[in-house]
């Protein structure tokens, strides 16, 4: 049995992992909820964000510039992807949407591999994030600690956009009933574009923030995509609160299982998902109608 100190440490770490998963999953879920498109390129976009941070940090050394330039870059990528590809697929079956975004993901990953090579890139921790903070019994890396705050702020900003703006109205109406959106008299095409770009930005932002922690390489997004799926299955399809709560739950499952046996942490995540599918198929925050 692990010590209480370790369990508390892992619970805290689960919060850190969870907020990040929540950010990745919320990007996926607002696109899914509003446009009905399951974006299989989400993992590749996460990776692209990390590379954006790598490039800017390598040239300027400025984390803030990386975040800003990377953010603009991700918005551009999101707009381009929606205009060129995804827009053609709103009227097509879900399976086609999955296939085309899956293909786009392959192309993005392979293009990055072709340009940057398959080797791991390393992104330095920003100067204000170096060192360790002592939190009672727990020593925790400063950057990871700050990341919890930064990601929470981003999630809150996303909440404001979703619940306090007209775009948010469209998103939430879309989650409730896609047909209603047309009735609202909003420029739906533009709103869809904004939502898609916002979702891409969320994936990219997660990648940018995570870049200094993990090694950056072309295939890094794959596992995040799958984990984001698990988060959405747990939280409920297309639900923003579901993505946030599901993300936190997933982070805690991985981290707390690690206190007992690290090797089983991933397996446990999927086991919980399977159990939830039996007990509450629509997910914690999902509505019955949409499953």
């Amino acid at each position, binding site marked *: 049995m692990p010590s209480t100190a370790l369990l508390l*440490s892992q619970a805290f770490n689960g919060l850190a992992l969870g907020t990040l998963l929540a950010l990745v999953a919320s990007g996926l879920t607002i696109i899914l909820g509003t446009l009905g498109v399951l974006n299989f390129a989400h993992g590749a976009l996460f990776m692209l964000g990390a590379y954006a941070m790598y490039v800017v940090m390598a040239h300027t050394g400025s984390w803030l510039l990386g975040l800003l330039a990377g953010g603009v870059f991700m918005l551009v990528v999101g707009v381009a992807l929606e205009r060129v590809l995804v827009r053609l697929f709103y009227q097509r079956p879900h399976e086609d949407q999955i296939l085309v975004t899956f293909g786009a993901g392959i192309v993005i990953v392979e293009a990055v591999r072709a340009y940057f090579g398959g*080797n791991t890139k390393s992104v330095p921790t920003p100067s204000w994030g170096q060192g360790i903070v002592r939190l009672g019994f727990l*020593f925790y*890396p400063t950057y990871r600690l700050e990341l919890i705050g930064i990601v929470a702020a981003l999630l809150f900003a996303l909440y404001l956009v979703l619940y306090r703006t007209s775009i948010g109205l469209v998103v939430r109406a879309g989650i409730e009933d896609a047909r209603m959106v047309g009735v609202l008299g909003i420029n739906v095409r533009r709103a869809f574009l904004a939502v898609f770009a916002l979702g891409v930005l969320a994936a990219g932002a997660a990648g940018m923030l995570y870049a200094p*922690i993990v090694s950056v390489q072309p295939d890094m997004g794959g*596992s995040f995509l799958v984990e984001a799926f698990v988060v959405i299955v747990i939280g409920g399809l297309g639900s923003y609160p579901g993505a946030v709560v599901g993300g936190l739950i997933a982070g805690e499952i991985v981290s707390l299982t*690690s206190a007992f046996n690290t090797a089983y942490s991933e397996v446990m995540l999927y086991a919980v998902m399977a159990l939830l599918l039996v007990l509450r198929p629509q997910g914690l925050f999902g509505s019955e109608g949409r499953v």
Partner: protein
Amino acid sequence: MNESREFLSLARRRALQLGLGTAGGLLVPGLFADLARAAEAPIGTWPAGVAGDSVFVGVTSPLTGPYSADGKDHVKGYELAFAEINEGGANAKAWGLKGKGVLGKQIKYGVADSELKPNVAVQAQTQFIQRDKAIMITGCVSSAEAVAVEELAQRDKVLNMVGASGANATTGHDCQRYGFRSQPSAYMACKALAPIVAQHYGRGKKVAYLVPDYNYGHSVFRSFAAFTKPYGWTTVAKVVIPLATSDYSSALLNIANSGADIFVNIEFAAQAVNSTKQGAQFGIFKKMQMIVPNISSFQGQETGPALMQGVFGTMDWYWKLEDRFPLSKRFVNAFRAKFRYTPAWGANIGYMQTYIWALAVERAGTFYPPAVIKTLEASKANPFDSTLGKVWYRAYDHQLIRPVPVVVANSAKQMKNKDDVFDIVDLVPGEQAISPPAFLGCKLGPYT
């Protein structure tokens, strides 16, 4: 420290002796020609693969993914050896080869990216065997690839000079008659390393392990724990992490909370670099000394001296061995001239194995695989001179008996140039580090 010095001087003495012995044992010419073996039944790609004026060697190595830096270096070692042997220049002569090529045949080769996936490696090597009639297959940077390709080699009766693979199983449970491994097994590496680190850090240490959840990881853990046990070292945490982990935070929290004095990091290559950097973020190195039982080719440079300084470990080979072994000197010079950087041990494995194979073929006087295998198995009586001095394959399990370099990383201040990352602490003789014959459970398969 006395004990350590003793090891060092012993190794030096041995190396010297072996070096002196070089001239005598080398040039036993092949007694048979392939023609004389026409009576033998065809086997594998023989004689179809030796019918022309060239032979084909299939090379697979991870050119993408986390081990790709090691994998690319590995391939360059092969390319250099093939070029030298085909040319028949001074280096080929120094190794003891005669004329151009091997038995007068030029070496052609194909290189395929294994993507670090055993299935892809097997697929590519099978293509080389079936399409190109490869007479020898080689190369890998993981034990999973090694074991898979060895199995293929045994089935198709094509000789396999295993590439970089440290797991005990490669010459243990999964050993094959057609597979030969030159890298020290985890057993050898840990047996060589344990007394030196115990000497350095003292007795009765508490140890935490970061164990990647694959065969090699578990091999190293078991071996290291077993060989440090006599010095009173105990395991306080064994943190097994799933494959392809990129965020080590939960694993590192377990280690940080373990109360250990020593942190043994068994992760490899990019993952070793990454876990070390994250470990520093979690303050692990304020409390613990890191040991890396098998240090990957570029781990020192990529991690940087700030985190690596004082870290003990073993390596298959290090360029500073050029001071001890003339063939290492020739290798380093030729490699630098061709590729503009200093070779790492991945390259040495490719380079050295290719030469040993060529020498064995010339000694056997034929490419006929059973004859080459028997020549390699009989090499104890007639060791090969190599970049690691005199080396020979143990007939029992096809493990190369070779010295094990134990190294320690320099601090930034100690480094004289960018290549001066490690110092060789000791060169532990192979006979001293090797496992007892039956220990790893090897049962070699049939010759035909």
